[in-house]
């Protein structure tokens, strides 16, 4: 019954994502495209943080690396797909290297190390003008032609973003449901025991960083042609914090968390635009309220109801079993 409801909800959400934009204007399409792009980056961070338990304040920097890759290469005549392949590889390698500090430090300390990388990336974007255009950034990033079709119309570019999001979703679902997903969760829950059970924690930590960062880069590749302009202020620590919030508000370690979190982070500022300067205060209060009520985010609220139902059924079974198992 519950499973059937879930599938129905999912079908409605997908139908909405495909059909609704047909009625949208330019701005609505832009917002929805941005949701798709940010969701991809948040899915990556959810792997690193939510599943594997490694704090990162550098996801925004990886979006930046991907965006600059796309901007630099496509303005020099590369196809976007080529830029995407390079950005994925580059961010995978940088993410892997950034994982090394995580082998020694955890939690807040790891946050600081990744924050340092975030700052470093920003300085490179701003100061290496020969490559990145400096403070002016790179303007006029073209949208790609795919299968002979130009994606310059906003609707087509939106569908392109949605298609990439669908690919990422399927791949990530396969990943977290494979034994790797189990190893990542074990790493988060109890690294000491995981290590003693043969889990090569070092390799899985590096993989969690590398894959998560690569998805950040992929989001950046889509971001560049969407906005058309790539400049340093877009990839400061603010973006990393925003992505972190998407993961946490949505529900860290839940597969659908990033989708909801990104929806809140992208839509809420638009809806609250009328509040002008008070918007941030209102937004902050809303997030605080949510996290007090449900520390596991929006998905956590749904999960809580489902678990309560399951627990009632299970406790009956347990009571019956408990009687037999405690007896020698």
């Amino acid at each position: 019954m519950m499973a059937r409801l879930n599938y129905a909800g999912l079908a409605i959400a997908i139908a909405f994502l495909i059909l609704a934009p047909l009625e949208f204007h330019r701005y609505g399409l832009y917002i929805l495209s941005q949701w798709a792009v940010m969701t991809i980056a948040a899915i990556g961070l959810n792997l690193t943080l939510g599943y594997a338990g490694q704090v990162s304040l550098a996801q925004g920097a990886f979006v930046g690396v991907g965006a600059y890759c796309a901007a630099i290469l496509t303005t020099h005549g590369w196809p976007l797909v080529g830029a995407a392949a390079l950005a994925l590889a580059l961010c995978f390698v940088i993410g892997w290297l950034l994982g090394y500090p995580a082998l020694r430090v955890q939690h807040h300390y790891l946050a600081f190390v990744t924050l340092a990388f975030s700052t470093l990336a920003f300085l490179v974007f701003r100061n290496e003008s020969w490559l990145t255009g400096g403070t002016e950034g790179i303007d006029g990033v073209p949208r790609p032609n795919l299968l002979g079709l130009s994606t310059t119309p906003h609707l087509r570019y939106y569908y392109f973003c949605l298609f990439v999001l669908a690919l990422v979703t399927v791949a990530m679902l396969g990943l977290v449901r494979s034994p790797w997903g189990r190893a990542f969760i074990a790493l988060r829950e109890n690294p000491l025991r995981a290590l003693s059970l043969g889990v090569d924690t070092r390799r899985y930590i590096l993989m969690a960083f590398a894959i998560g960062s690569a998805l950040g880069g992929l989001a950046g590749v889509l971001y560049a042609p969407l906005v058309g302009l790539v400049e340093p202020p877009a990839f400061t620590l603010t973006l990393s914090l925003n992505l972190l919030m998407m993961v946490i508000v949505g529900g860290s370690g839940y597969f659908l968390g990033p989708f909801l979190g990104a929806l809140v982070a992208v839509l809420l500022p638009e809806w609250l635009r009328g509040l002008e300067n008070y918007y941030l205060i209102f937004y902050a209060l809303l997030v605080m309220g949510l996290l007090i009520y449900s520390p596991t985010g929006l998905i956590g609220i749904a999960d809580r109801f489902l678990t309560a139902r399951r627990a009632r059924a299970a406790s009956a079974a347990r009571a019956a079993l408990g009687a037999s198992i405690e007896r020698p």
Partner: protein
Amino acid sequence: MAAVLEAFRVSKRFGGITAVDGVSFEVREGEILGIIGPNGCGKSTLFNCLLGQLQPSAGEVRLDGRVTTGMRPCDLNRLGVSRTFQLLQIFPKLSVRENLILAAQEHKGTMLSRLFGPRDAGLSAAADQMIAFFKLGPLADELAGGLSYGQQKLLDAAMAFMAGPRLVLLDEPAGGVNLTMLASLKDRLKAFHLERGATFVVIEHNMDFVMSLCTRVLVLAEGRVLAEGLPAEVRANPAVIEAYLGH
């Protein structure tokens, strides 16, 4: 009988404190070796040195004659050495079955085959057998965090057995377990020992538990080996009585 594990003059110093001081002993194929000793005598530190969790300051550890000092715990585990910890160490957000699958999934194939292979790494049947063996049947799909303490303790032991280890090191398995659960834990340990022929090393405070389970006992005091022998011999040894009871 052949030695499975040998410790040769293993020492561990923390700053000026010598926790383990030149301990040598061997674990023989198929035995249940008990390691006992007063609090702070270096039992757990010795365990951690044997298992790669700590690097010994001096000395050597050999598994089947091969030097393993300096090896990481995960590599040692894949060679068939398994352990439990003093405090319960399970994965509360995974189901009982998933806990057990995790305990063996890294033992075969490669990273790539685990990524693209079946979701349960082909271990569901083995996990269910282990669940049945520990009489946790109806709990297979429950989250491990929802089990009672005693059930979690059984799961904890089951995880150490899941990959079919040849050597299992149990760190205070009886700690914090009530009497009825202790009896069923001991029963399962003995059954596993008989059926699979695994070799055990058990650190324990509970003398009755050690005397009734172990085939040989090693007594540590102040980081050194004080006595070694059959349970009855050790119990009668005046030096052991003194170390335990004081003057």
